[in-house]
């Protein structure tokens, strides 16, 4: 079992195949898209593979320590960013192949004209906190 983070991007990722900005979809198309995502999460809850998931606002800021006694520096809402995370889901699955399979399904969410958007999703394995010893007896 391993946990994976599925990341949706506002921008920064390669363009989707059916790449029409969401504000140009019909309300029905948006509803269908949202419904697909929530059905997907509900189904993973049923299979025992769902851990957590949230959508993120497009606004955010870079924040940096600016020295003793001074307030942190902020660089406005992602002034120079190349990448922006729209939302994430954490799944707990048996294999990398399963994680890729699920990300593929999520990428097929319907978009404009009710067709799959073929969005690029990022799949990132979690680094486990403690080492397992299955494969390395020299520890």
């Amino acid at each position, binding site marked *: *079992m391993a*946990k994976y983070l599925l990341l949706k991007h506002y921008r920064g990722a390669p363009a989707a195949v059916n790449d029409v900005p969401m504000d140009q979809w019909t309300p029905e198309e948006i509803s269908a898209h949202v419904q697909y995502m929530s059905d997907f999460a509900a189904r993973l*809850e*049923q*299979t*025992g*593979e*769902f*851990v*957590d998931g949230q959508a993120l606002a497009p606004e955010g800021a870079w924040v940096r320590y600016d020295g003793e006694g001074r307030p942190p520096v902020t660089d406005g809402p992602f002034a120079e960013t190349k990448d922006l995370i729209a939302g994430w889901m954490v799944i*707990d*699955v*048996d294999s990398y192949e399963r994680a890729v399979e699920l990300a593929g399904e999520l990428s097929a969410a319907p978009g404009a004209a009710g067709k799959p958007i073929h969005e690029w999703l990022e799949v990132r*394995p979690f*680094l*486990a*906190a*403690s*080492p*397992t*010893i*299955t*494969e*390395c*007896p*020299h*520890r």
Partner: protein
Amino acid sequence: MNEALLRSLTPSVLGILVRRGADFAAAEDAVQDALVEAVRVWPADAPQDPKGWLVTVAWRRFLDARRSDAARRRREDLVDEEPTPGPAPAVDDTLQLYFLCAHPSLTPSSAVALTLRAVGGLTTRQIAQAYLVPEATMAQRISRAKRTLSGVRFDQPGDVATVLRVLYLVFNEGYSGDVDLAAEAIRLTRQLAARADHPEVAGLLALMLLHHARRATRTAPDGSLVPLAEQDRDRWDTESIAEGVEILQAALARDRLGEFQAQAAIAALHADAPTAGETDWVQIVEWYDELVRLTDSPVVRLNRAVAVGEADGPRAGLAALAALDDSLPRHTAVAAYLQERDGALTTAARLYAEAARKAPNLAERDYLTRRAAHLNTRRRC
């Protein structure tokens, strides 16, 4: 309230219910109810025969559940079928339960969850905490596993190799939350070894005990990884090591070698060495040759290359490594280590940094990054 007693009784009570004809899912629910009842009642009024008490209460719960949704005629039939109260049968069904929970039709994660719940007697909440997933997720995983098994006959012979794999998965999950899964895996394997006369069960138990004996020394207080050669051997659990070695020797004497026995033999050779320098690497290589023969696993070949590097020098290790696919997990880390021992510090530093990027967990990534940094600093001096 003796929680350990309750947990040890759980599998046999469940086994008895299933043997009496209850389907697995309903029996499991009924046993959980009986356990809750026991926690409530026993502190004030402990029964003389705890197992008999649990069987009686669980069986009544099972019948109640059946009655509530069955037709009147069906109910009357069931009352007729109800066995007369008395001592619980002496037949031990725990073994069957192990096989059922590790059934090949289940995914590994479901088999692990079901084993911990039905054989280990852990609550869904405890299992969820140990695996860091929401309780609802774990509850679904368990009930799906139970549904998958609903058509499986209880007396179907199981596959001991699958059971052992599931127990090893539990062991390797190690410690998190308030349930120590490594200790739980040892407890369950011990229980299995007492019931199943099989040298590989003994081999796995020995392997777990030998690994577990070193646990306290495998990480520094700050969580960083301590390699075997640098571990404080005075802090190894000698009792655990002695027990592991004894169990292993008895298993090996039966001359039915399997991969867990061979792995345990390697672990025992490490545990036996008074210092890292006195490790019998030549014999370890021989055991790896056995393991390669038994499993033909590329991971085993990789570990063998490390042992060859210690027994015959880093060049020999690198030659063994060269024959392997460099996409194997930890291949780069092993290459870095052997290059470092061979004196090729620049190459080693580059490989450590590359291995760190591929590391499967934080502790290893930090360790490999530090090794790279250490070599880079040394080169600059």
